[in-house]
């Protein structure tokens, strides 16, 4: 353990337990961890016991430290994580969360604060990283376990898995996140904030009649808040999209009411924002609330572009400064890991947006985003979507969707395959079987929906051209039997009713047109066409230009 690392740990501890907490400072030191860790190369960080003396045995800090150590360990691609490692990480999370959950009134935290000089403070970004990593490691653990059981990587690994059946189980993971939410009272705090329309920390909400809600400690609140985000992701991964939406509702509500991210906890980390909106948009898409999905995707792309703009400006300013100081051109700094990860997610968001917009056209997308969607990077994906081929669209979806997981592990089948070393081919969380991975179910349901929507979209395109059209004529256009067209019209109505039922808004918004049948005649009512208005404006504009031109020529 070098002196550099020792200093790092001490400085981090100092920042976390500072008497006058300074978020920027904490953030600064926290981000140094990437740098500092490089000295360890392919070794894990020193254990908590080894640094304990440096931080006066600060238990909470040591738990946080161990979490960081494990994160770094798992992120290091050169390390091969074993089940033993995962068990260790689980035990650390367990200890950290249990400490908070059992400390409902915040007494233990206050004790510790007295002993170590100040309350524990971490940044929003740090809290998000903890929770996000927690869910991510759960994902990995499930996959690891499943593949160990299926193909029996090796006997001892399999044995470790079987010995630790109670780590990384889905009910415990759920439990932890839910209890963190409960003990931190984050839901109540956010509700109060929305009622009084103040800041979300209870202080600004002194609107008199609304009672202030106090949370046990800042650490509680931060972890509870991001536990909501974690639960949102977890529910998505398990396929319960409705719950995913409802669990993140307090956070989304807050982000809608507080303007432009000022004081918004979520915006302390760009990847937190992008990730949350990505999952929310995905959930809307799977629930078939297409309009909400489009709105969500558009809003997060907007946020991300603005963020990148401001980052670029900052970098440019920094570069100029450095150039002036050094008197020669300076390389632009490399993107940090978070921005890269956010960028990758944003690509997925854009792909999803393309898909949804194709399935449910007619909603307005702002210019700058439309520009991005048709630009260089998205050209391939655009081609996939516009091909109108179900398989291509589904492939794009699978690539852009998260890796859904199968949480339950069937230990019995595995036990019988032990020693045989062959693959159990019933598609349990791994390869083999008709559906492949668990995500196969999501894919199948989605593919069916895409098929239906594409069929209906073709019909819609024809119907929009007419105010009345007979079945015979439609049949001539589409090359389908009149009876099939009739069936499709009923099917489409069914879909429209579904969209109505789920959005609670009139069909006028769900799809921009309306029709009904009288016998064999289809009567169509198209909604307001944006294009028409733009056309009239365009003509007006051109006429005026021409007039001005004629006038100047005459002079």
């Amino acid at each position, binding site marked *: 353990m070098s002196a550099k690392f020792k200093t790092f740990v001490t400085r981090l501890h100092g920042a976390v337990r500072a008497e006058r907490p300074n978020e920027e400072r904490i953030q600064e030191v926290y981000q140094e961890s990437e740098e500092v860790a490089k000295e360890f190369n392919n070794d894990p960080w020193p254990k908590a016991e080894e640094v304990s003396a440096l931080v006066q045995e600060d238990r909470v800090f040591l738990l946080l430290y161990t979490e960081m150590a494990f994160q770094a360990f798992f992120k290091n691609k050169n390390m091969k994580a074993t089940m033993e490692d995962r068990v260790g990480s689980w035990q650390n999370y367990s200890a950290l969360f249990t400490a908070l959950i059992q400390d409902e009134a915040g007494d233990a935290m206050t004790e510790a604060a007295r002993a170590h000089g100040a309350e524990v403070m971490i940044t929003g970004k740090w809290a998000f990283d903890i929770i996000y990593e927690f869910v991510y490691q759960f994902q990995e653990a499930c996959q690891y376990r499943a593949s160990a059981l299926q193909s029996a990587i090796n006997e001892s690994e399999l044995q470790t898995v079987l010995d630790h059946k109670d780590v990384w189980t889905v009910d415990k993971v759920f439990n932890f996140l839910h209890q963190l939410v409960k003990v931190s009272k984050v839901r109540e705090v956010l509700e109060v904030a929305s009622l009084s329309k103040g800041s979300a920390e209870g202080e600004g909400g002194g609107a008199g009649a609304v009672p202030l809600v106090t949370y046990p400690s800042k650490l509680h609140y931060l972890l509870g808040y991001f536990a909501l985000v974690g639960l949102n992701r977890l529910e998505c991964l398990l396929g*319960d999209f409705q719950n995913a939406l409802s669990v993140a509702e307090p956070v989304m509500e807050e982000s809608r009411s507080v303007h432009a991210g000022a004081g918004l906890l979520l915006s302390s980390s760009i990847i937190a924002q992008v990730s949350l909106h990505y999952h929310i948009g995905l959930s809307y898409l799977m629930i078939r609330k297409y309009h*909400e999905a489009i709105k969500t995707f558009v809003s997060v792309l907007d946020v991300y572009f603005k963020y990148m703009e401001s980052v670029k400006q900052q970098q440019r300013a920094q570069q100029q400064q450095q150039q002036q100081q050094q008197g020669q051109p300076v390389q632009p700094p490399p993107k940090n890991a978070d921005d890269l990860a956010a960028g990758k997610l944003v690509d997925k968001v854009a792909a999803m947006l393309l898909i949804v917009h194709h399935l449910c056209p007619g909603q307005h997308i702002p210019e700058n985003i439309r520009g991005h969607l048709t630009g260089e990077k998205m050209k391939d994906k655009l081609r996939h979507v516009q091909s109108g081929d179900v398989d291509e669209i589904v492939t794009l979806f699978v690539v852009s969707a998260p890796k859904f997981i199968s949480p339950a592990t069937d230990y019995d089948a595995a036990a019988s395959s032990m020693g045989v070393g062959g693959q159990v081919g019933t598609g349990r969380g791994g390869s083999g079987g008709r559906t492949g991975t668990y995500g196969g179910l999501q894919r199948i349901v989605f593919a069916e929906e895409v098929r239906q929507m594409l069929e209906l979209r073709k019909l819609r395109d024809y119907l929009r051209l007419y105010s009345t059209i007979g079945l015979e004529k439609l049949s001539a256009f589409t090359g389908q039997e009149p009876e099939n067209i009739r069936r499709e019209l009923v099917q489409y109505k069914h879909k429209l*009713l579904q969209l*109505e039922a789920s959005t*609670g808004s009139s069909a006028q918004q769900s799809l921009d047109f309306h029709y009904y049948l009288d*016998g064999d005649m289809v009567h169509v*009512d198209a909604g307001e066409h944006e294009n028409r208005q733009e056309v009239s404006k365009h003509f007006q504009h051109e006429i005026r230009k021409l007039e001005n031109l004629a006038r100047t020529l005459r002079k």
Partner: protein
Amino acid sequence: MQPRKEAFALPYATPSKTAPLSGPESNSSMANANPGISTGLPRPSSYNSVHSNVLGDGLYTQEKVKHLEEYLQLQVKEGSYDFEANKSLLKLYLLYPPLANNENVETILLKALLNLPATDFTLLLYILPEKLQTDENVLTIKDAAEALETARYADFWSILNSRAAVFLAIPEWKDDIRKIILTVHAATYKAVDKAHVSDGVGLSGDELDSFLTANTPGLVAKVEVDRVIFAPNKENQPWVRKYKEKVDLQNMLGILNRLAA
């Protein structure tokens, strides 16, 4: 036994029973999207106690399975429906495969179809336990649901007839689905040949007539010898179009002047 409410008014033909939207943006409030309280079947009698005692804390523990299974049977007996509870039960089966009960899953799926056009059934499909994804009965229900969604009613009725046993879990299921199909027809058609309605609801002759009369007034306005005229509702009437011209008079006058000169 709770009286069965008239559950098949078209959305917005009568005032919707969903909670009103809060504010101009409709993305907030998931209460709207809870199909259990929408224009479908009524709530079960023990709804409140189940939601506060069993589902209240949001955790997924094995002990809840028994309670939710009993609650499901209550729904079958009463003809009531609670989507959230059933979904939670299905999720518990997903998380603890040994506890999964096939018949209950089939019942849950069938119940969800009764809440069409809400998307309950699709939402359940996403969390179907793996064992059941290849179960024959579940696949039959899936096929029937697909036929229903794509308006392939002839296929739908033939599935029901050939594998009737699967759908007997809920006694009045067939009749309720029939009403839903009629609802979709009422939304699509102002008036149509009787033959099409007959294909749709799987009835003919006197049975068809009495079924249609039972839904008059409400969905059906008039039953003729070979045509059915549906009651006017939001979906099967022309919309009133509001013309909003974006060209104001001054500009137009200027342009007209030019043209006339």
